[in-house]
């Protein structure tokens, strides 16, 4: 409880502590705090920026999606129209083709019929000739017809 030289010692210690604190403790702490403050501010700004960007992106995405919707419905409409056209076209083509095929078939049939007729005619004529041959064979008598044949051959020879 007495005032003594401790007073001086403590005053010196006090100033040394203050000096040390001012020189080596305070500046790095403040620097760190400032740095962190700047970093946090930066982070917050970045966050805000990100949020804004996200909002923009959302708007843009909405635009893109609605555009895509419109385009898709356009495409579907167009496709429907085109499909109708194609069906019509195919139908026409098919009809044409069918007509062509039918015509060809008819022509072929006619041809077939004609050729069949020809063949028939030939066969019939051959048959007739054969029959005639048979008849002639049985009818012909060399003696009887000698004059006739001679006649013919003489005619041929004169010609």
């Amino acid at each position, binding site marked *: *409880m*007495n*005032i*003594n*030289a*401790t*007073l*001086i*010692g*403590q*005053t010196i*210690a*006090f*100033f040394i*502590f*203050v000096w*040390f*604190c*001012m020189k*080596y*403790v*305070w500046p*790095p*702490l*403040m*620097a*760190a*705090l400032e*740095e*962190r403050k700047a*970093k946090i501010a930066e982070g917050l700004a970045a966050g805000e920026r990100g949020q804004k960007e996200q909002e923009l992106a959302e708007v843009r995405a909405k635009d893109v999606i609605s555009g895509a919707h419109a385009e898709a419905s356009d495409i579907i409409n167009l496709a429907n129209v085109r499909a109708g056209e194609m069906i019509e076209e195919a139908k026409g083509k098919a009809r044409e083709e069918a007509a062509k095929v039918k015509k060809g078939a008819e022509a072929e049939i006619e041809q077939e019929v004609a050729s069949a007729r020809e063949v028939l005619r030939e066969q019939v004529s051959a048959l007739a000739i054969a029959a005639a041959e048979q008849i002639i064979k049985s009818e012909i008598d060399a003696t009887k017809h000698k004059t006739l044949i001679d006649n013919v051959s003489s005619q041929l020879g004169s010609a």
Partner: protein
Amino acid sequence: MSGENLTSSEYIKHHLTNLTYGQHPDGSWGIAHGSEAAKEMGFWALNIDTLAISIILGSLFLYVFKKAATAPTTGVPSGLQNFVEMVVEFVDDSVKDSFNSRNPLIAPLSLTIFVWIVLMNTMDLVPVDYIPHLGQMVGIPYLKVVPTTDPNMTFAMAIGVFFLIVFYSIKVKGPGGFFAELAFHPFPKFLMPFNLFLELVSLISKPISLALRLFGNMYAGEMIFILIAMLPLGAQWALSVPWAIFHILIVILQAFIFMTLTIVYLSMAHEESH
């Protein structure tokens, strides 16, 4: 209780005696036994306990804060760093609130004052007998563990602040300006001696009030702890626990008051007249 053979007044006296080293009246140097012997040593004696504990605590403060300051700092702060930065920000805010000029000394000064006083006051919360008893075991007869209950300690800091007040007053306003501030207010110039007397009293009352406020609070607190420690064992905790809890407030409050008044006084020293 240390020593059942002591009477209670001896016990209290023992607890309130510093470990003083100085010259005995007979010319030999040594440790004073009892406060009367310490008084006889006159001014040139040292309270070794106050010096040692306060310097240990001050070094602890600087070590911890220096460690936090040099640790990697930019990322997410760890526990210690977080705590240190919280204290630093608190002090920095207090300085910014009440100190309007620019001076790189004020904030570190306030931090040192605040943390150092908190640490020294906190020694009060260590049960009153622990450290003195340990000291007795190793042969230290007297040990007052709370440096702020030694007026030497509080007056030393207050005088340090007083030096700074005078130094900055003269530095900012010039010797003439400082003298004018002391002599020409609050009354007109022809009442100069009276002004001077008033202003000098108010100037000197600053460190004295600083020192005595802290000393008085801590001394009274310590005294009550000692008185509680003399109660029978069963009753002690019923009183010492609430008092200790209340004392946590005082520990920090007194440090804060000392710091804030230091800032305010130095702020006044920096401002041009009234």
